[in-house]
């Protein structure tokens, strides 16, 4: 379970998060939406302890991740999978080595078992014949799929997706969302998806939360949040240039 309580964060005096409260129950999947540069990725990095808050707590199964150091932090991070916005693949490794890296480093699996697992993940992502390529040789979509394969290779119990479909064509984007849904059903992980593809994630998440001006302004089930008729949420979903928020 992920519980974010009263989270505040400033960067160089500019407030980015202003008292965020969010709960994701075990096995639940939440979509976090909001305009670009509003602090969604920053919030996600707080969840995994990459950024420390100025105030507030991030509880992972009841434990505040910001209180953990050393081995305790390592243990809790073993539960996480994180799909970074740009993939964050290691450029000096091939796709195969990228996916096998966490398995080699964090498990005692034999090389043959690792190979079987990696090829299985790559096949699912449509990258079976691209294992020998380096990240620089891949398209944006392939890079994202390879990163997703790496994030899911360890069967995480908490998965964080930072814009998994941004920059991809609609078909590849939908393929990735379908795969996230399949993995969620199979692994039952607790997860947060940061996305702009609001309508596309309605079918795969249980909750949607919208962040605006550093605060959660709307939250609920896909049906419930639409029924709230929050003007900022409605404008964002419809993509209207006019409304309560001036985007430019």
């Amino acid at each position, binding site marked *: 379970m992920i519980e974010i309580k009263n989270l505040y964060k400033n960067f160089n005096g500019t407030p980015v998060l202003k008292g965020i409260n969010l709960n994701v129950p075990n096995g639940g999947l939440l979509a976090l939406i909001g305009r670009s540069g509003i602090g969604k990725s920053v919030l996600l990095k707080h969840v995994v302890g990459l950024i420390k808050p100025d105030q507030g707590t991030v509880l992972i199964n009841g434990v505040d991740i910001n209180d953990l150091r050393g081995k305790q*932090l390592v243990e809790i991070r073993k539960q996480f999978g994180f799909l970074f916005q740009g993939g*964050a*693949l290691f*450029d000096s490794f091939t796709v195969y080595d990228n996916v096998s890296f966490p398995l080699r*480093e964090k498990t005692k699996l034999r090389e043959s078992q690792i190979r079987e697992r990696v090829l299985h993940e790559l096949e699912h992502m449509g990258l079976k014949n691209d294992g020998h390529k380096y990240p620089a040789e891949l398209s944006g979509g392939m890079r994202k799929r390879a990163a997703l394969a790496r994030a899911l290779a360890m069967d995480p119990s908490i998965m964080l997706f930072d814009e998994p479909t941004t920059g991809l064509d609609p078909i590849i984007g939908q393929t990735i969302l379908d795969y996230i849904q399949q993995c969620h059903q199979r692994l039952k992980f607790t997860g947060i998806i940061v996305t702009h593809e609001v309508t596309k994630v309605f079918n795969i998440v249980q909750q949607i939360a919208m962040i605006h001006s550093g605060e959660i302004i709307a939250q609920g089930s896909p049906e419930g949040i639409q029924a709230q008729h929050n003007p900022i949420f409605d404008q964002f979903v419809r993509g209207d240039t006019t409304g309560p928020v001036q985007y430019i």
Partner: protein
Amino acid sequence: MNWIRTLGRYTLTGLQQLGRYGLFLFTTLIWTFSSPLKVGRVIEQMSFIGVKSTLIVMLTGAFTGMVLGLQGFYALSKFGGESMLGPTVALSLVREIGPVISALMITGRAGSALTSEIGIMRITEQIDALEVMALNPYRYLVIPNVVAAVLSFPLLGAMFDVLGIWGGYVVGVKLLGLSSGTYFGEMTVYLSSKDVFHGIYKSLSFGLIVAWICCYKGFTTEFGAKGVSKATTQAVVICSVLILVWDYFITSVSF
């Protein structure tokens, strides 16, 4: 009163920076001695820092020795002391010029590359990815470089010395007519193992300084490509200055 405020702000920022450098070194040393070494990564980095710097170190070593031979011969001939050319070249190289110039050359070739490589990993979130995988970035990125640099610098420094002494020999003996026996004979009289160890200690400490500063600047890179270029430039400048400052201190202590 504004200038006092400005001075105070600069002082505080400077102290904070120094603290961060110190903390980075402290953390690196703690992890170096408390976690198993990634031997494969160390060998890889020794190849990058050491083996691939061999040519440039040998070239600069040979030509530095040749210049020392020429200048030394000119100065010594003023008072008829040409026979002391061998010891002059050898002592200058082994105690001072070998460790310093080889360290400066490796900083330019490998240190800058280290900073930019780690810096790019930082801005493309590859270091964050390591952390999220519950892997210690120090163990994978910093410690192998520190160990590789500490082992490689003395070897490259020694190579510089040998080529430099050979360069001095070519100029002094082959070009200027000094006898080979005088050149090497006097050298064995005046050059002691203490001088050789003095050079080795210097190279070891320069290796630590270069790996420390270059890894730190890479680790703390910000703001895209411009940030990487800024970090790389700063790393090379700080390393070069620190090498010379530390060289003075270590020389004055063991004088």
